[in-house]
């Protein structure tokens, strides 16, 4: 295995992780809710619609963060290599899959593992394995 030292950012990534953990802490300690993005967004699409306000303001904060960063001269960089077709298929799978799994990287990967949930550990190992496999097939089998 070769380590990509040119792009390796352990310090920034750890700092970002601590901030993400702090966000989850604020939401559970003040609002009593799990910071799971797919659940917060998906809850807006399900009926009956309950407790809309905190979901909407959380999402405004999440989407607004890069807007503020851009105004401060630190625009978020997203290098998107996927084609439009891949983007649309991937988005649909992520939406459908996270709702059936009751969580994504944040709800299961961060909050669930922090709670010591076996379900979330299984979910996290499964989506990570599927992610590793998908990239392997795409880059080294099809693209190789």
């Amino acid at each position, binding site marked *: 295995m070769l380590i*990509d030292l040119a792009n390796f950012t352990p310090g920034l990534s750890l700092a970002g992780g601590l901030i993400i953990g702090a966000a989850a802490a604020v939401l559970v300690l003040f609002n009593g809710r799990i910071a799971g993005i797919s659940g917060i967004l998906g809850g807006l699409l399900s009926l009956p619609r309950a407790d809309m306000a*905190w979901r909407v303001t959380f999402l405004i*904060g999440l*989407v607004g963060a890069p807007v503020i960063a851009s105004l401060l001269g630190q625009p978020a960089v997203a290098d998107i290599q*996927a084609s439009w077709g891949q983007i649309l298929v991937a*988005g649909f799978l992520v939406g459908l899959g996270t*709702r059936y799994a009751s969580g994504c990287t944040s709800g299961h990967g961060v909050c669930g593992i*922090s709670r010591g949930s076996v379900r979330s550990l299984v979910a996290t190992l499964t989506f990570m394995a*599927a992610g590793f496999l998908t990239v*392997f097939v795409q880059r080294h089998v099809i693209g190789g």
Partner: protein
Amino acid sequence: MTAITALLAGLLFGVGLMVSGMANPAKVLGFLDLAGTWDPSLAFVMVGAIAVGTLAFIVARRRKRSFLGLPVQLPASTTVTLRLVLGSAAFGIGWGLAGFCPGPALVALGAGYPKAVGFVAAMMAGMLAFEVLERAKSSLQRA
């Protein structure tokens, strides 16, 4: 007040995703590409987030009410089900195809990337498909 703390949590979450590099699909795919030149950075994101999260949930679990007096709502389910595993697998395939999971996609949408807008639209279509399928299933069970 609860809307304000949720707004703050969302802002912090977005800042964390940007600082960590997770908002950039190329970096996420660099982490998922074990067989290429591997970028282990995102493991550090998880370590940092879980370290703070663990402390927060130790406090949260001991309380029935949040600091604002709201009920602390933690998931009650403890069984590993087929839908959990298959749903996670479908999510992982989508994550590997695009390099986006839900949070980073919303951050990239806020940053104005057209493909992130397309991804979020498709993601919400997938979530709506789930709602429709679940409602069809429950009406079949009632009939």
